Structure formats: C-alpha cells, structure tokens
C-alpha cells in the first residue's frame, strides 16, 4: 500500500527522512570531471587513498606513484593507481507551471520535497547541488549548494519556489541549458502537461550530454479522476475549455489515453537514455527515493 505523502504545510525534509537520506549517495552513470575534489569515488582514476589498480610505468608518469616495494620484489616499474574522489554536479529542475498547483499535496510541493531530498543526498556527498525552477528566466537566481552546512539555505530556497507565468517547458529548459554548460546528473520533475510537448525540452537535455532523469509527477485526481455530470473543464494555464458529459466510457477512455501518454513518454525517454519514472503525489518521497529511484540507479 502506498503511504500518503506529507502535507504541504509540513517541513520539506523531516528528521527521519534526513537520516535516511544521509546514508545514500547520488550515482552517475557517466564519468564526469568535477571542478573540485569531492567525497566521491569517481570512475576516473586519480589521486586518493583508495587503491584501484596497477599499470606498467611509461615515461612521463609521475614518479611519486611508482610502487617501490613491487619494484624490489619483481624488478619491474609498476605504477599504483588510486580511485579519484571528486565532486558531482547535480541539477534538479522543478516545473513551476500553474498545473503544478493541483493535487493533495500539490504536485509542486511534492516536486520541491523530492528536489530537496535529492539535493540533500548531494550535499552529504559534497556534490555541487543546484535546484532551479523552470520559470524561463534568462538569468537564474538559483544558488549552488555544497556541503551539509548548506542544508538550511537550500531548504529555504526550495521553500521559496512558487508557480510562475506559464512558460513552455522547452523554452524554460532551453534557457537552463544555455546557462549551465556543465555536465552531471539532471533530474527534471514535471507533470509534463505541456500542450506544446515535452520532446524538445528533453532533446535539449540529452544534447547537454547529462545524465538525465525525468520524474513524472501526477496527482491522484489526474490518474483517477472522480468527476461527474455535464462539465466544462477549464485549463488552468491557457484557459482552454473542454465540455464533457462524464460517463464510465469517457473515464475509461481518459485512463487509456493517460496510460498511452505515459507509455509513449517512457518509450521516448528510453530511446534517448533518459531514465523515466512516473509517480503519484500519494506516493511518499522517501519511498520514491529509497525504493524507486534506488532501483532506477539514481541513488544507492
């Protein structure tokens, strides 16, 4: 049974959740060169205390890494390789369109909680954490957080994110990509309810050669609508209307359309190496992180 998510007025990260998150770390499927040395053993071999392998000495190698003990025993110059510990760029993009205000708790609150959770995991591993609202602004006011000390600032910043003017997802992502050239892990948290489509946005992200995760957040009302009667549905973003007379057949057809949409998105992502996860706001964040995202390989 799915545990009910925390309510909107609760703190984004509860102590229990923080304790759980502290034991996790973000995993990148790609080798990225961090700008600063972090607490992460990257797949790149480098200078650290953790031994990785030996290799033959070739001229030009740093003499400091020759294993003289082996030279004494084998009379061969072998070079000691260590796993390099480095920092990771972690980006969390939160869709702040009007449609994110829906659901109990709201999809936006859920997205903020998730972004904060993943951000905290990054902070604990001294990763470079950046959480951005997709408001299409050319200059981002989003600060970069690093180290556990930044938790308070990060939570405050995330708390301050609110819905803004409706900007097409593609435009907002494009603006982000232009600002952030760096590589790393990118988690896009959105309901993907953009009538212009999500394709362009995801293609921008893929082009950045980032390790992209899409977390598709839907409210329970969207997954299983409980409406009745002759209704005029008004789109909260573009105020478009759709007149419907609710019947079981219409509901069934809506569910089928939604399932097809999710399946289509998953397929789109899979083809482009994007990890796609669909979640409901009724699924708790810790459960999503500890079970689903761990299963997806984003955290361990």
């Amino acid at each position, binding site marked *: 049974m799915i545990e009910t998510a925390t309510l909107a007025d609760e703190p984004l990260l509860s102590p229990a959740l923080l304790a759980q998150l502290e034991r996790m770390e973000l995993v990148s499927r790609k080798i990225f060169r961090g700008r600063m040395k972090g607490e992460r053993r990257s797949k790149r071999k480098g200078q650290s205390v953790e031994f990785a392998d030996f290799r033959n000495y070739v001229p030009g190698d740093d003499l400091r890494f020759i294993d003289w003990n082996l030279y004494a025993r084998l009379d061969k110059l072998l070079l000691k390789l260590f796993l390099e510990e480095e920092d990771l760029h972690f980006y969390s993009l939160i869709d702040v369109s009007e449609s*994110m205000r829906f659901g109990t708790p709201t999809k936006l609150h859920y997205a903020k909680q998730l972004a904060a959770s993943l951000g905290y995991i990054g902070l604990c591993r001294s990763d470079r954490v950046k959480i951005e609202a997709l408001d299409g602004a050319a200059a981002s006011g989003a600060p970069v957080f690093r180290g556990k000390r930044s938790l308070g600032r990060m939570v405050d910043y995330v708390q301050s994110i609110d819905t803004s003017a409706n900007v097409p997802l593609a435009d907002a992502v494009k603006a982000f990509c232009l600002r952030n050239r760096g590589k790393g892990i990118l988690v896009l948290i959105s*309901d993907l309810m*953009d*009538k212009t489509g999500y394709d362009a946005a995801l293609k921008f992200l893929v082009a950045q050669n980032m390790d992209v995760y899409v977390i598709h957040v839907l409210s329970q009302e969207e997954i299983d609508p409980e409406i009745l009667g*002759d209704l005029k*549905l*008004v789109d909260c973003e573009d105020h478009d209307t759709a*007149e419907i007379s609710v019947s*079981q057949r219409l509901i069934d057809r809506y569910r089928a*359309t939604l399932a097809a949409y999710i399946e289509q998105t998953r397929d789109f992502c899979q083809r482009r190496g994007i990890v796609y996860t669909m979640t409901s706001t009724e699924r708790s964040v810790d459960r999503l992180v500890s079970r689903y995202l761990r299963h997806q390989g984003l955290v361990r």
Partner: protein
Amino acid sequence: MNWFDSALAGPQWLLLGLVPVAIFLLYFLKLRRTPVEVPSTFLWTKALEDLHVNSLWQRLRRNLLMFLQLLLALLLLISCLRPGCQGTQLQGTRFVFLVDQSASMSATDTTSGQSRLDFAKDEAIKTIDRMKKGDSAMVIAFSDVSRTIQSYTTNGSLLKNKIRSIRQTQRSSDIIEALNAASGLANPGRTSDRASGRDVQVAESKPATMFIFSDGAVKEVPEFFLGNLTPEYRPIGSFEPPNNVGIIALSVSDPIENDSQLQCYARLFNSDDQDHSVKVTLNVEGDIFDAQSVDVPRNGAVGLVFDLNSLLSGLDQPRRIHLVIEDDDVYMQDNEAWSVINPPRESNVLIISAGNEYLDLVTETSRITEVANVFREDVGFVGSEKYEEQTTLGFYDLVIFDGCAPDKMPLCNTVFWGSAPPGEDWKVAKVTEPTSIIDTNASHPLMLASQMTNVNVLKSSVIEGPKGSVSLVDASDGSIMRLGTRGGFQDLVIGFAMQTITEDDEVAINTDWMTKLSFPIFIQNTMMILGNGKNYQASVGGQPGELLKFRTSLPFDTVNVIGPEGRKTKLLPRPDKTFVLNDTSRSGLYAIQAPVQDSVDIVLPVNLFDRNESNVVVRDKMTLGYKELAGEIASEPTRQQYWMWFLLLALVILVLEWYIFNKRILL
C-alpha cells in the same frame, strides 16, 4: 399553386411557433455546464478527440442535439402546413357543393368501381382541397328533397367531414329545391317597399360558384334563375350506356273489373344501347311462383303478365308479391319491386232517405250487391243511439243522406243529395231554377263514363265547398256537385234532389237523371270509390320518402309498422282515425298490424318506379333555366400530400437524436 394547406388555426400556430424558440432557450439552459478547473485539458481533449476537427463543425457537433431538435420541430411545423402540390386553385371565394344522393347514384359504373355517390363525394373533397385559404363553401345533398348539410363555412375539414357523411337514398331526383337553397345568398329576395311601391333588394347578393356532382338524371328546371350563381356540372358515372334493366311498373289487376282474372303486370326498361335478355322471378310470400325470361329491347320497355288466378281461392290474407330481375347490373335498386294482393273486402253503405225508389232500385242490382252491403234507414234514424255508435266506430264506409242531414259529420265518407252538410265548410245557396248543366269533370273517377249532357235538372243550388274541393258538375250559375275532403274522408254534395215534395205532399221529380244510363254508373262509381267497394287492388303505396296515409280495417288505437328491414315501429292514429307513415326511406313492403290482431291488417308497398332513375345513362348536359351546362367526366386533379413524408423524416430525426444522445452519455 397552393403549396400549403394549413391544418391549424392562428392561435395554434402561434403556440407551435414558440416551440423552436423554447427548444433553443431550453437547450442553452441545459447546456450551462458546471465549470471545473483542471491542471490541463490536454488529456481530456485528446480523449474526446475534439480538437482535431474543424471549429465550425466542432461547434455544430457540440450543439448537434439542439440542431436536431430544431430540425425536428421544423419538420413537424411543415407537416402541420400539409404541403402538397399538383392542385389548381379554385377561382372565386364562395362555393356551393350540390351532391346528388338519389337512387341512381347507387349505380357502380364509375372507373374505380365504387358507387357514383362515393365517387361524387371523393370528387367534391378533391375540389374542396383546391379551395384557397379563406374561401367559404356550403354543402347541399339532394334527391327529391334537398338538405343543407353544412351552411357556409371556411373550415375545409368540416366541409369534408360533412360530405363524407352524405348517405345513399332510394329516392328520385329533383334538383329545384337544392338550387333554391343554393341561390339563397347569391340571389337574395326582393321585396316591394309599400311606401314607394318599388322593389328593394333586401340583402347584398353574394356571387358563388355552384358545383353539381350528379349523374344528371334530374328533372329539368326551366324556370330557375341562376342570377349570381355560376354553375359547374360534374357528371358522375360513365357516358357509355351502362348495362341496366329495371322494373319501372308493377300492378295487380282487379278480378271484378277484369273478367274474374287476377293478373300481375310489370314493365321492364332497358337503358343500355344493347338488347338484353333477363330472367324475371315472381315470388309470392317468399316462394317462387313464376319465372320468365324476357328480352328487353335497347332503350325500350317491355310488358310482362303473370297469371295469379290460382291465388284467388282462399285469399283471406294480404299476399306479398316480390318481382326480381335475377341478372345483376350496375344499378340494383330497380331490379326488385313489391306489390300486394289484398283479400276482397265488402263495404257497408247506409242510405238514409225518406223513400227513394230510384235509389233503392239501383242499389239492389247484383252489380252493387256484389261489392257492398247496402243498409237503408229512415230519416228518423239520424241522431239515434245506434246511428251514433255505428258512425263513430267506422262501421259504415259511406252514408248517403238523401234530402236530409245530421247534426255533425259522421266518421266516414258521405254523400249529401239535395241537402246541406252541417258546419261552416260547405255553403249551399238558395234553390234556383231552371238549371242547365254546362260541364262535367269527366276525368274524375267518380264521373267516369257518366254522360251528363243529356240530363235535365229543374231546381238546383250552387255549392261552395271547403278549400281543395273539386267541382264535378257545373251549371250555369256555378258548381252543383262538389267533392271535398275532410281529414281522411271524402264528402260529395249534390246541389239538386232527385225528387221533391210539393206543397200538396206529392212527390215531384226534380231531374230525369234516374232514367239515364249514367245514373247507375255514377252510383256504382260512388259505391266503389266512396264506399271502398269490394276489390283486390293493391293497397295504397308510394315512393320512398313519401308520406303514406292509410286507414286500418278497424279504428285501432295504435298499430305496429314492420318495415322492409324487419324494424318494428309504433304508430298512433290521427283524430280522424287515419294513420300516416312517414318513415318510408327504403323500398319494400311495410306491414301494418294492430297489437290485438293475430295477422297483418294491411301491407303497403313502396317502390321507386322512376323511369328517369332507371335510365342510368349519364347525361352530358344539364339545363338550368336558360343555361345549358355541359360536363366532362374527368377526375379532379388530386392534391398530392407530402406531409406524411415530412412526418416520417421527423421520426427518423427523432431516432437519430435518441441514438446520438445515448452514444454521448455512454461515451
């Protein structure tokens, strides 16, 4: 061309016209959907697949149900307008429809095989369909009488219903009464203004077109003035002479006058232009008595004789005679005829006289005693109790008052010979002499074969009778013998006595008539006609629709009449103990029986016997006044009605609407 023929009145149209408006309003009231804000209509619209279609069609589709409902209402409205075409409108604003319902209209020689009357009704209805809105018309049905079935109205449905209600009769035709009714408003009467002595029009004349739907077998009406009536004759039937042989006469001879022979005479008429041979059967009391095969020449008549002598013995009841032409033809009513042989009846005649040997002598002859029982009483008998009783109860058929008169008239026929009847009706002038007879009414049955020119009369009185009395003998000063009617009785008053008593109490002869041959003949005629002398002749009968006046053998308080269809009706007598039968609409025999009687008292035959009706050839011309109308047998252009198609389409729309509604709900 009149495309629409409204079935509704103004206010009804107004109500119906509000229906589309109401649908429109109600639809939009219904369409007020509850607005619900959703994160995105993206998936919903995708689910509905609505955004993929053209916006105009989209709007139309969104309101499809309303459009269908409006279309449905429109179709219903058009249906109520009863669209149609192929009819030409009638010219004019007022119409009169004269529909012939006489016997000959039952002929079935129309193209459709229905009767002429049914065909005429259909044609009249088609003509009504061609009337413009606001035109008024009246309907008159006529046979020998006319009946205004519907006075002027603009209501076409009412006119058509009234025309459908016209029933076939078995009567003859006489159009004049119907024409008079039709011209009532078209030619209003004029009256003379007494002050100025001029003719004044009493009302404004309203010209009208008169359609006569008839086979033309009507009596000519040369005196009729059409005035503002424009007649149109629509002959009904076939101009080809139809196959019809009919009985136009049937009678039974009197054996007393016919050498003791009882015979039945019939006359058949063939209106076809081909000779026909028909089989004729004579039934007596329902059993076949005789049959003959008769050749009837084209457009001619032939006589038939049936010998009925075998019926003479034991004839104590009226015998019903039924003559039938066994061969079917287009007009069946004249293929049957009825008559009756009544048993001979002896009459009772009372002569009240101070003594008249001439009268005694002539009434003692075998010829008279054969037909009547003659009683003789003295003058003093008048006023006696027995006289009162016998004359009140109808014991006597005839009382002859010779030189005397009672205080009041007896309830029987009377002859006053040289005396004045009581009451104010008759006026007998003073006796004058000499008298010269100048004329005799030889055509009257009483004076049949009575030659009076050689009769001399000395003294006589001029007689004035009641209204309707006829003079039988005229002298130089006026009528000296008159016959008048009194209820069901007849009174003969003769203004001269046979003999007078002189001042010396001697009998003096006043006339030499008694020595002439005409005297016994006159007495015999009197005994037969006024005394209802013994005879076999058929009872009084008549034509369908005629009033039949009859007298029963005894003065009954009530009698039952059993008609040709077996229907029994009760009849009460008039004060003079006679009965009048007015319901004689059908041909056949009407049996009269008193409740106290075991057997039928009288049987009255009713037959049309109209050569004009039996001649079922349709007349192509009809003469009304000085105008001769020519008619063509042509079916009226039928109005093609389309409203049922519109109604059917409306039904289809309704089914479609139901389907779409259900599909939307279950989507």
